[in-house]
């Protein structure tokens, strides 16, 4: 945490009841979610969720276990279709779209319970992320036309470049499933970056990492944002990470947003403290 310096940022309001960093305000927010909700049978997992994310913002989503954070990601990526509300991605309504379409529109993600292509090599995992960046058709593959060789060569170079963000290029031939836990999480980020997103969703990227790995991850998340000029939204329980790199933070409890603001706002918000530590009265 001490190595880490976040530039002070001012959050400003945008037309919907949301806030984004001041430097992004002249551009459409990459994400604007309003009144988002989903019911699973009788259970309302997410209700009236509102959030805006600026073009180059690193945003955080925190809250106790079972609060509905992963469900929000699943709604944004259309793993579930929302029961209520709208999701505007880069100014476009994503209603009726599926996972593949919103990925092509610019959302990429990682998973809380890692979902790598375990039996395939690290390189193949990244190349699958780069699938839509390659353009040759099936006949070119079967007959090995020049477009195949060209496109594969470019993609492999790109994959190594992306792997080098985490210094993983030497692991290209290793089987993804054989990597240590931390490296698997990093590989998921690399694979997601392969799809050339404008919004990257990270679901507990530091889970299972030791403190030095976590610090390194924080630096790399910032590096990714700075080099790719993309927005990143992350769910995380490690408060030093969240408070260290997130500019805007939303706090979720029982499917509802109970607080929003800068890390400073969140840290001093009594409702947040209550959600995490419980009410004083109840504790007695």
């Amino acid at each position, binding site marked *: 945490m001490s190595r880490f310096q976040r530039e002070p940022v001012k959050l400003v309001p945008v037309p919907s009841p949301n806030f984004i960093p001041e430097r992004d305000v002249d551009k459409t927010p990459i994400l604007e979610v309003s009144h988002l909700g989903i019911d699973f049978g009788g259970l309302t997992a997410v209700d009236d969720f509102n959030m805006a994310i600026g073009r180059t913002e690193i945003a955080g989503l925190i809250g106790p276990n079972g609060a509905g954070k992963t469900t929000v990601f699943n709604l944004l990526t259309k793993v579930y279709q929302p029961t209520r509300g709208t999701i505007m991605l880069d100014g476009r309504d994503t209603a009726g779209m599926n996972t*593949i379409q919103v990925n*092509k529109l610019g959302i990429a993600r990682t998973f809380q319970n890692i*979902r790598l*292509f375990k039996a*395939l090599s690290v390189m193949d995992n990244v*190349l699958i992320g780069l*699938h839509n960046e390659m353009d040759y058709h099936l006949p070119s*593959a079967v007959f090995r036309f020049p477009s195949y060789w060209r496109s*594969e060569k470019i993609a492999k170079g790109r994959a190594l470049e992306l792997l080098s963000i985490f210094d993983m290029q030497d692991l290209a031939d290793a089987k993804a499933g054989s990597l240590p836990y931390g490296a698997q999480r990093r590989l998921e980020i690399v694979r997601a970056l392969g799809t050339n997103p404008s919004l990257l969703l990270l679901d507990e990227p530091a889970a299972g990492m030791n403190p030095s790995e976590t610090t390194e991850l924080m630096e790399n998340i910032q590096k990714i944002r700075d080099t790719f000029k993309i927005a990143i939204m992350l769910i995380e329980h490690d408060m030093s990470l969240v408070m260290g790199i997130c500019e805007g933070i939303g706090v979720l409890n029982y499917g509802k947003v109970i607080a929003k603001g800068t890390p400073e706002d969140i840290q001093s918000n009594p409702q947040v403290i209550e959600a995490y530590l419980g009410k004083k009265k109840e504790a007695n």
Partner: protein
Amino acid sequence: MIKKSTIIPMPLRYLINIVLFAAFLFVMNTLITGGTISKYYSGVISSIGISIILAVSLNMATGYLGQLPLGHAGFMAVGAYTSALIMKAAAGSLITFPLALLAGGLVAALFGILIGIPALKLKGDYLAILTLGFGQIIMVVLLNIDDVLGFKLTRGAAGLQKIPKTTTFLITFICVGITCFVIHTIMKSRHGRAILSIRENEIAAESCGINTTYYKTLGFVVSAFFAGVAGGLYAGNIGILNPSAFGFMKSIEILVMVVLGGMGSMFGSVLSGGVLTALPELLRDFDKYRMVVYSLVLVVVMIFKPTGLMGTYDFSLNGLLDKLILRLKGGKGDGGGKAVLVEKEGKANE
């Protein structure tokens, strides 16, 4: 930097394989046309080739795509009848048979699309049952279509007789070569990786923007196409077609080849497709125990090596040559023989 496991450059690797395969075809063909290999054994060798095509094509749907279709014989039947009818109608010309095989493959592929689109919406057991049903329906249709609709097409239970026996060693193994080449080149491309990603994790595949419906259908259709071609070769090899040859047991037989060889290993499918076809022929006297042996072998392999004989390992001649060159150059390849094999799984293996 990156570990370079390929020493022989890419186009040369293809050339080496093509030259060696052509040499194999030439030698075998000389032996057969010269009479060193009898007509009977040449027929057996062709049926080995047909089994290899069936196993390699089913491996595309099971090993690579990760589905469990139980109707592969149905696609084979569709291809066999299509080719046979064309052959009977227009025998004689040299070009007829290749065209008939192509037509058999295409009609089977069409059925692959028709059955694949609903079937691939289902998962696991449901897909297995739906494709099993498809196989049975094909058999029943072939059996009864003439009676019901008054055609003189499939000739019911008596089956199609006197199909020109145009299947030769050469044409069979050219088809084997094409099947392996096409499936190999698909699998080592962005399209093949998309198919593998569905097997590995469908949700993650979709989150990478992979059109899973399209690629599932593609894998299924390619699988059906080559089963259809194998059916055509079968018709031309035996000369008689009968619906009962394409029943549930035939589908299971092909599945056993794939499982035994190792799901996801083309080399395993080639090997076990060949062995499981050759053995019963060589041990003719034990023919009635064939299914017993099948079941026993399967049980034993599943107990001792659940991933099949080859696992997902694919043999690569050039990979072998690479290792040899490395070793001759000064022992960099030593001590890691096994480890290198394991690491090369799923990588470019020509």
